[in-house]
């Protein structure tokens, strides 16, 4: 693979690319699902190919191929240059890449137990045990459990002399229990919606008490059918960590992607209210709000040695003591923020897609106090857990989320289970209403594994660490109030 990557790089340079990089990738994935006592899905997939990215007369071209022969690779590199030349016919400003040292490195994520070495029988045995526990609860319609493993082995070579080999392994899974009545469908998930993953080996699965939690979670899904509807109106809101993770993702992560800010996603995902003039001026949140981007976070889903621009992983503040402080940047766009080095946020979801700015791990830093202390400090609130749906406008102001379950809190106690909880707000008003963030003992690295961006669409996985937090005066019960 590396020889073919070198050939692609040399071909692109010989054909007139001013800059070129090549990512040659071998990708392996295993997905196992069990539904209602039977195997619902099992796919072992492998994919290999390379993507060639070039600058021709200061404009981008990209081509990708799975024809891994000398001829196929040369054709791909030539096509990338031809595409770049076509781009140059309609570009005003030449791309200037922020300086980055040439890195020669081999980097691999931690993986104690190779998930692809664990026998399928063992994985199925775990899923069937979870499945049986869920289905032992009367009233459950669907029990679905799943495990997923992937490994990316990548060579990155650039005409600037970078030569980086990285191996990233991620593992995890989860389950859902669904209960149905004539006019209602209720769902509970564990450990979070869409499953829980980390950049680690099978040890993530072994450390997660799926079976021990299956019955409780299944019982909650059934109880929700007869639970009271979440009330509508303005209430104090407490969010559990995994829901807060998605709140961070949608209302902090995406609007700080510099390509969005500069209009490059305008036709699809939209732009951002966090325009360049707002950095170091806008009170994004209350003083206790600190949000940190960190591609070095241990076991994060967006943890790596180097990004797909060949830039070393970094950690920096996006919001510091409530003040909006930084963006997610690339070598191409870093200079637009006045910074001389990229923050290293460029990734692609495979050899076949062009690298672009993607979120790195982005977390809300812990405050202090346990969840029980937070609840004790609360007279009246709604406590929402586990995401069920999400939506936000194209400038990232107005959001609405639904969670699987909520508790009505009165004088520090959970007094009533509530179904169909929703809340809606405006990003900066919401983060400025944050007055309690639990401490490190409640902080956990949650994940988002279905982040879509770009055209053609790409999927990214990101960790968002969070501890439960409280927000004052939030509109709840939206969508069920009429």
């Amino acid at each position, binding site marked *: 693979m590396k020889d073919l990557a070198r050939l692609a790089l040399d071909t692109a340079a010989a054909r007139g690319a001013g800059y070129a990089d090549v990512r040659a990738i071998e990708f392996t994935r295993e997905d196992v*699902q069990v539904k209602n006592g*039977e*195997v*619902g899905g*099992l*796919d*072992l*997939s*492998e*994919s290999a*190919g390379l*993507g060639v990215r070039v600058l021709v007369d200061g404009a981008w*071209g990209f*081509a*990708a191929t*799975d*024809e891994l022969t000398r001829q196929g690779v040369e054709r791909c590199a030539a*096509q990338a240059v*031809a*595409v*770049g*030349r*076509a*781009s140059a*016919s*309609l570009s*005003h400003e030449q791309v200037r890449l922020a300086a980055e040292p040439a890195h020669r490195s081999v980097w691999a994520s931690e993986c104690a137990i190779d998930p692809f070495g664990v*026998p*399928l029988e063992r994985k*199925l045995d775990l899923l*069937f045990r979870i499945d049986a526990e869920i289905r032992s609860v009367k009233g459950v*319609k669907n029990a679905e459990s799943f495990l997923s493993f992937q490994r990316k082995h990548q060579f990155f070579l650039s005409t600037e002399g970078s030569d980086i080999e990285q191996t990233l392994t991620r593992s995890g899974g989860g389950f859902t229990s669904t209960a*149905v*009545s*004539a006019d209602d*469908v209720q769902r509970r998930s564990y450990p979070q919606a869409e499953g829980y993953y980390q950049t680690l080996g099978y040890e993530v699965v072994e450390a997660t008490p799926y079976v021990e939690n299956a019955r409780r979670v299944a019982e909650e899904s059934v109880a929700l059918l007869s639970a009271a509807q979440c009330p509508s109106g303005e209430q104090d809101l407490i969010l559990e960590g995994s829901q807060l993770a998605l709140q961070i993702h949608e209302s902090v992560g995406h609007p700080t992607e510099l390509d969005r800010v500069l*209009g*490059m996603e*305008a*036709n699809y995902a939209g*732009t951002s209210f966090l325009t360049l003039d707002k950095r170091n001026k806008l009170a994004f949140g209350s003083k206790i709000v600190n949000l940190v981007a960190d591609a070095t976070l241990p076991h994060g889903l967006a943890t790596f040695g180097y990004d797909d621009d060949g830039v070393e992983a970094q950690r920096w503040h996006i919001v510091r003591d409530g003040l909006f402080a930084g963006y997610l940047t690339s070598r191409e766009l870093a200079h637009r923020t006045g910074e001389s080095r990229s923050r290293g946020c460029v990734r692609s979801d495979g050899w*076949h897609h*062009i690298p*672009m700015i993607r979120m790195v791990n982005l977390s809300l830093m812990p405050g202090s106090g346990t969840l029980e202390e937070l609840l004790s400090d609360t007279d009246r609130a709604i406590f929402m857990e586990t995401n069920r*749906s999400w*939506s936000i*406008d*194209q*400038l990232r*102001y*107005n959001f*609405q989320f639904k969670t699987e379950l909520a508790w009505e809190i009165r004088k520090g106690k959970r007094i009533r289970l509530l179904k*169909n909880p*929703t809340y*809606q707000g405006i990003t900066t008003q919401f983060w400025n209403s944050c007055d309690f963030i639990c401490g490190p003992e409640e902080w956990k690295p949650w994940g988002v594994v279905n982040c879509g961006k770009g*055209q*053609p669409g790409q999927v990214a996985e990101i960790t968002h660490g969070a501890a439960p937090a409280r927000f004052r005066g939030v509109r709840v019960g*939206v*969508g*069920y109030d009429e």
Partner: protein
Amino acid sequence: MNRDDAKALLDQALAAARGEDIEVFLGGGTESLTRFANNEITQNVAERRYLLSARVVRGKRTGRATGNDLTPAGIDRLVQRASSAARLQPEIADLLPLPGPQQYRPVDALDPETESLGADARALEVGRAVERSRAAGLEGAGIYEVRAGTIGDYGEIGPLAIANSSGLFAYHTGTSAAFRVSALDGTASGWAGHESHRARDIDGAALSARAVEKATRSREPKSWAPGRYTVVLEPAAVADFLQDMSWISFGALLVQEGRSFLSGKMGEKVMGENITLRDDPYHPLHRGSPFDAEGMPTRPTTIIERGVARSAVYDRQTAAKEGRESTGHGLPVPNTYGPLARHLVLEGGEESVEDLIRRVDHGLLVTRVWYTNVVDPKTVTLTGMTRDGLFAIEKGKVTHAVRNFRFNQSVIQLLSQVEAMGRVERSGGVVCPGLLVHDFHMSSGTEF
């Protein structure tokens, strides 16, 4: 890849199974996409990608393996991986044996001119679009995308050809071209798009002119209070509602599990009498594949007929459960999702969007919607935002821009309150008209 090459490849995979029951599909092709923003090309890509997916069946056990190594050794390894996965699995009680040969209706979907359209031709079309936005002092942003084959189908890669050891063989390929453009003036924006199987149907300049006109009219929007409004939804907005509804409602497994609003409602009136909705890959605006991921021929299926629930769409397993035949809407087996309607057609009328606007005394024109997501599956209540052109309609005329709204709206209710419908277009993979709808629920405002 043409039919003969695809067949030769699939035959190799069948032979590699050495007598085992096997189903194998080939998917992929090429995709090229020019992306522009701020009136210049910002990304420009071309990919060639194929995959082979093999499923071995051993009685009631089955295992699948997928890969893109199409060499003889790679194919052999892939089939052996599928075979050992099948061996290790517990039995699936209602797993069906592989189907035999089927008859397919040919679909003319391949346009050679589109298949060979290069980066230079795309750049020229983008250039014509950008000229319009630049001349108006606006920023143009968008895409020109051309595909040949099945990249992007089923959200990833769909089957181009499928064969099995019981003698089934199916092949279908096609092209598609899509041009979508936004024009921006700060937070004011307009949008237009067109998609077809032929690139020559694309007129970037005309689309850009429409986006520019909408953006220009979007300046200085007025704030309206949240509430229920009469709205004219352009086809792009209607398409989003129908697509989301399909995901959570029309598959037979959803209906059988009680998770769809159609569960227990077949034969009953569920929406307005003017609503007829079907799934039909043969519609001239769709030109979709005539078979599904099990190799079964796809039948046009009427889901709602004059407001009455008629049928879900079926794969072999859900059909067997009801003692009927598959409608050819299956996903790769095994899966937990069930069948999916992918070629929706909502019948329309003869009026233009302008005609619909003329009927409205006081209401809103919605260009398109954004980030829709399900709030409540049984009432098909969706939330989302209006985007790229929300306008007041007063006494049959568009009068001024209105600040965008978030909505929380049941699609069933929406399709029960349609006063008039326009001519059909294809937008976002759905063939549908613009609609004039009463009591649409705008639930909160935003900052632009």
